[in-house]
């Protein structure tokens, strides 16, 4: 099942900030189902978009070695609705990150119009919950490539973000390549 609630990263600074856009399209089935005749993106999926943007910022911080899950929406205020044709910009800032999890502030806008302000708490799952990955590494890297994370990804000093070696190796193995390929 596809569960992409962001379309592309516009900005990604390791340990600091991640911004992504989501285009709201009439072709998406659920839009009309919730409110027939008056399609809009449900608030829960706006939260999911910010959670995906911020969650990847949190996960990338530790090289995807932690299993990051959205644990709590500590604060959320919705200002307006997002309708077909709108492009939502999700901006997330990493406020705090520790062994057990992280706190992220998120904001959604459509042009100059505020859409949502919220705070999300992410948890790092430990082995008491489960000991397997949440994603298949090769599929996960494919998703990050589709989202253009490494096209825009930077360290705070401006140097480009490198793809984590364990993801490249998993991708190469899955594709039957002799060695990891950075540009695919």
């Amino acid at each position, binding site marked *: 099942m596809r569960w992409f609630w962001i379309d592309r990263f516009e900005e990604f600074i390791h340990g600091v900030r991640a911004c992504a856009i989501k285009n709201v399209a009439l072709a998406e089935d659920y839009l009309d189902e919730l409110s027939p005749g008056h399609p809009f993106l449900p608030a829960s999926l706006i939260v999911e978009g910010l959670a995906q943007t911020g969650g990847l910022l949190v996960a990338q911080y530790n090289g995807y070695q932690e299993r990051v899950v959205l*644990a*709590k929406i*500590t604060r959320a205020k919705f200002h307006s609705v997002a309708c077909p044709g709108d492009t939502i910009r999700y901006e997330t800032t990493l406020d705090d990150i520790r062994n*057990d999890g992280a706190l992220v502030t998120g904001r959604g806008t459509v042009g100059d119009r505020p859409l949502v302000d919220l705070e999300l*708490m992410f948890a790092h799952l430990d082995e008491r919950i489960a000991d397997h990955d949440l994603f298949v590494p090769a599929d996960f890297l494919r998703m990050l490539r589709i989202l253009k994370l490494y096209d825009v990804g930077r360290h705070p000093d401006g140097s480009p973000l490198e793809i984590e070696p364990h993801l490249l190796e998993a991708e190469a193995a899955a594709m039957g390549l002799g060695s990891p390929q950075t540009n695919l």
Partner: protein
Amino acid sequence: MATTNEEIYEKVKEALIDALALDDDEVTPGATMVGDLGAESIDFLDIVFRLEKGFGIEIPRAELFPEDILQSADFVEDGKVTADGISELKKRMPFVDFSRFEENPAVQDFGQLLTVQDLCRYIESKVG
């Protein structure tokens, strides 16, 4: 500048109000975190975050949540903590009053023990 107990209480109160969406007057020293204030397990992560940040300390999980004792065959029998287990709990958590728990030390009731005052005493021991 040392943090006074009054300052600690106010900061702990603020962290609880933010994490649990409480009114100012709902937080009292004797209020239990789970029973009176409605804290759930995910709220404890939120509370620990805010306390670590607010006081600049590290809160190792085992110091507030002694799961290793509560799940150990050495310290638990038929769902109740043994005398050895209670002794371990007292050593691990000297800031908690276990007298009520000792009357019926059921593991499932342990979560109901911790009060706001216990949390303050714990913080005092970390920053003092």
